[in-house]
């Protein structure tokens, strides 16, 4: 059961303050989408007002560099359409709009996401909205179609606020290697972080993690209620964890990839970044489903319209994979891991140690498979039909070479070269085939544990809390990706669902998160456990100063600068 105190995190907008929102500006949006906007529910905000406040918040926090494109005009238009539906709906029905499980009649709100502001990582195609992948290669590229998952949100009446920043083509774990520059973690500006001794606000900002850092920052800084990321090796969960969000990597195939510009097709899934497990379940319910345009989508399992408030974990078996005691794991994260395991045990779950022996080989394997698919997927960026085209046109080959050199940053180029090397006839067996075999072993490890009766695995999401940008860039992208993805990418190898849940703030005042891994297609069970934890962990809400932009100006931090890393 949920105590009233815990419930206060889900605040009605406009009631101001509340425990979870302490210190937040009164204008800031601090709530979960399951509690908003219910305009006829008495004194709550309308979709237009909600959209306006989000847009204002996005502008105030522009220095975070979370957005590549803000679609203000379109957002306001969509919000007013949603508002019209709400007004028409109110005149038609006397009862409050609590029927999430019923399809609304025409002219009525379309569902739980109608009027809800959301953001989308800039590697999802959006019709007539620039889609850059944070790469020089796709600057100025306006796709002629919209990705299935984005379209589903739009069809639900959700309001697109903008396209979010990322590592170039989602290749990275910091959101630091995009052509538009690094994304700043909103927690860098929270009272919780900045009010500790020894923190220099000018230089000590921390990274969001990546590659969906812009999406994580957008939700964490209250500029959106929901953001789509992509997750190939942890790209949704990693920034979700470092930004204190609930971030879900659904089962492979549960969500359509059509329109997601691929990194690793066999591992990519659209990810969901929100502030609560309930929100994740709501979004998942809308986004899931077979897509005729994506042959790898699977029939969705039967799922409840929303998670119950009263969750029983007594019959849940929780596995603690011993191999996840990886070198470099921070003491604080380890401590949280133990705390949460105890919490689950006290809640009636059985907690046991399990072994996933091939996990140690996962990251190397991931590197081979990832670069191979990258090499293949990037072959289409030849400058002939779309995207950047070099001026060099001595020959078709010279044009290709110059276009790729100018269009991609060195991270992308290195992965292309490595991948092509692994795919060479003489190397294929030794690298690609071997990596595929190990991938199968990793998947079998998980399958065996689940077959033995374990329901969910509890692991850290990252080694520790967010790293300062100035420290992060001391190592190259490849090293960082290997470190940051260590706990997250085995899940992608196996196509399983995983969700990261913030558990506490570290001694530095930054979020620490843990990961729950579930059986394929058991995403809702996973979210149920996440919700149970969320109800008990009392993770604090972010405390952003009233006027963060003012604070930043004083600190001398420039706004978003679109600088090329080339």
């Amino acid at each position, binding site marked *: 059961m949920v105590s009233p105190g815990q419930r206060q995190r889900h605040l009605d907008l406009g009631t101001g303050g509340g425990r979870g929102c302490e210190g937040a500006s009164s204008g800031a949006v601090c709530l979960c989408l399951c509690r908003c906007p219910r305009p006829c529910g008495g004194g709550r905000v309308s979709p237009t007002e909600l959209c306006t406040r989000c847009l204002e918040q996005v502008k105030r926090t522009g220095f975070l560099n979370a957005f590549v494109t803000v679609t203000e005009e379109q957002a306001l238009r969509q919000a007013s359409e949603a508002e019209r539906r709400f007004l028409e709906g109110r005149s038609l029905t006397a009862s409050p709009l609590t029927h999430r499980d019923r399809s609304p009649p025409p002219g009525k709100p379309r569902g739980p996401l109608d009027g809800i502001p959301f953001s989308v990582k800039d590697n*999802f*195609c959006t019709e007539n909205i620039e889609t850059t*992948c944070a790469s020089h290669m*796709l600057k100025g590229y306006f*796709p*002629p*179609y919209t*990705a299935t998952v984005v379209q589903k949100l739009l069809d639900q009446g959700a309001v697109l606020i903008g396209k979010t920043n990322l590592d170039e083509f989602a290749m990275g774990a910091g959101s630091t290697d995009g052509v538009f520059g690094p994304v700043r973690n909103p927690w860098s500006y929270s009272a919780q972080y900045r009010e500790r001794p020894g923190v220099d606000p000018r230089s000590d900002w921390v990274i969001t993690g990546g590659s969906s850092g812009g999406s994580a920052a957008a939700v964490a800084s209250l500029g959106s209620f929901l953001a789509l990321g992509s997750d190939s090796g942890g790209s949704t969960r990693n920034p979700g964890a470092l930004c204190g969000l609930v971030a879900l990597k659904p089962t492979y195939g549960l969500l359509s*990839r*059509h*329109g*997601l*510009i*691929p990194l*690793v*097709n*066999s591992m990519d899934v659209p990810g969901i970044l929100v502030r609560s497990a309930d929100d994740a379940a709501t979004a998942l319910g809308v986004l899931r489903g077979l897509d*005729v*345009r*994506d*042959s*790898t989508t699977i029939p969705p399992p039967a799922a409840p319209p929303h998670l119950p408030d009263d969750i029983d974990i007594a019959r849940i078996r929780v596995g603690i994979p011993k191999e996840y005691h990886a070198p470099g794991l921070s003491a604080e994260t380890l401590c949280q891991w133990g705390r949460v395991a105890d919490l689950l045990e006290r809640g009636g779950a059985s907690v046991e140690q399990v072994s996933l022996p091939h996990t140690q080989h996962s990251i190397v394997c991931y590197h081979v498979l990832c670069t*191979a*698919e990258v*090499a*293949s997927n*990037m*072959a*289409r*960026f*030849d400058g*002939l*039909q*779309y995207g950047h085209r070099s001026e060099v046109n001595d020959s*078709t*080959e010279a044009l*290709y070479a110059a276009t790729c050199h100018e269009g991609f940053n060195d991270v992308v180029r290195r992965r292309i070269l490595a991948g*092509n090397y692994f*795919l*060479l*006839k003489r190397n*294929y067996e030794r690298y*690609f085939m071997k990596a595929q075999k190990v991938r199968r072993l990793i998947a079998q490890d998980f399958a065996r544990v689940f077959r033995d009766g374990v329901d969910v695995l509890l692991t850290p999401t990252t080694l520790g809390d967010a790293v300062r940008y100035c420290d992060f860039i001391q190592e190259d992208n490849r090293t960082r990706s290997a470190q940051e993805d260590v706990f997250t990418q085995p899940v992608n190898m196996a196509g399983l669902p995983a969700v990261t849940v913030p558990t506490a703030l570290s001694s530095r005042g930054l979020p620490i998160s843990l990961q729950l891994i579930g059986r394929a297609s058991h995403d809702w069970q996973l979210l149920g456990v996440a919700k149970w934890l969320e109800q008990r962990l009392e993770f604090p809400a972010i405390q952003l100063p009233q006027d963060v932009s003012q604070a930043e100006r004083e600190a001398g931090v420039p706004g978003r600068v679109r600088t090329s890393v080339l």
Partner: protein
Amino acid sequence: MSTSLSSCSSRSRSASVQPGSPSAASARHWNSSASSLRISSIEGSLVGVVGLEIHAQIYASTKLFSSSQVCFSSPPNSSVSFFDAALPGTLPVLNRRCVEAAVMTGLALGCTINKRSLFDRKHYFYADLPAGYQITQQRLPIAVGGRLSYSHLVGRKRNQVVDKNVRIKQIQLEQDSGKSLHDSYRSQTLIDLNRAGVGLMELVLEPDMSCGEEAAAAVRELQLILQALGTCQGNMSEGQLRVDANVSVHRPGEPLGVRTEVKNINSARFLARAIDYELQRQMAVVEGGGTVLNETRAFDFKSGQTVPMRDKEGLQDYRFMPEPNLPPLILYERETVPAHTDPRQVVLVDQLQEQLPELPRVTRDRLVTTYGILPEHSFTLVNEDGLVDYFVGVVQQTRAEPKKVIGWVLNDLLGLLKQQCLTVSQSPVSPNALAELLDLLEAGSISSPAAKLVLQELWKGSGKSAKHIVEEQGLGLMRDRSEIQQVCRRVIDSHPDEVRTHALRAGNKNVLNKLIGQVRKQTKGRADPQLVRAILEEELSRPPFHGETT
């Protein structure tokens, strides 16, 4: 049907039923060149080894992985979906019709259908390959291990049917590429993506052939099979069927020689020529002590030679990789379909097997046994689209024997069609009309030459029946003895020299035939030929008038 192929088929037809025509001469030429290659094998010297890679464009309304229309000769880049243009984020969706076509083709060729097959990416950079890779089936193709049985006609009259087999290694589904147009004047390349992503079946034929003629006959048979199945239209000149030949020479008993790949062949006739040229070239190289290079050569139809292409193929590493966006392609039988499967998502192999139409080989056998026609005639009937039905239609409506009908259909009707480049379906003379004409002939109402005149009239398409034409033009058979006698005497009187020769050489046949011809000419072929012969013999055997012999 391509012009080049129909001329190839008419060659074999004319060789068998119209000996002495120019095309028959060229057929003999081909035959002799082919047999010279075979003779060398008997002597233990070099023999040719030929394998084929055939790309057959699947006859389907949409592309292999997208819903763009497939249409030959539509305006450039008018049939290009986002996927065909390789826009980022697009994914392939397999066209069920293409899968069915490949399964049917595999079944018709006796292949083992793989119930589980896989797709792979084959990488190379080319401007008309927008994704930078082609989706194909390298590791596990949809069908393997079949056999193509074909026949070709040999002998001086090309009336001996020789049966051959070529093993089929595999059939794989893959995407076609776009087309590049190089404008050297403006030094630019224009790309047309209409063809990009069209479904292809690549058929790999093992090196079981030994000369160009065999390869051409195998391709011709394959073409007929594909057309009968409706899985490929098979027009080589439109690129619906593209053939690359792997050619090498060796001495029997020794390992195979180094092979070259001959490309750029757009008709069966050129295929035979290209292969035979390449075999002769390689034999000359080997006999001259040289070595054949492993290279790709293009056939230049103007010179009839093969020339080396700028060869990147040999060095190319295609960096094959599994296509991650397509799950394994699973085929079922009625018994094995999992419950609750959407029937639109399922391809049933046994169902397709049952739906297979009659294949050309069976059709030919049926024609020979049912109608007693010659095997070589059955080839000609089957080779010409619609001709079998035409022939059967005539046979069913006339009292004339099928053996007589076949001559009229193959010589007269087909001759006229070829002359005017018409297909069987465009024939102005219906099977019905021809049957009526043959009935008149059969009843003895008209002579054979008159019947040909009537056919010419029918061809004009005036809508008049054969009987009407006969009556109108007075083409009925002349049987009045005295009337014919008068004509015969006139002819004898106007050919004194011939009559004298006849008398001196005691019944010279040539003279008699010449005079018969004259009578036929003067009666427009209407006179009863037996009567004419009898009267002429009688008249010539009479003692000559005295005054004329002195």
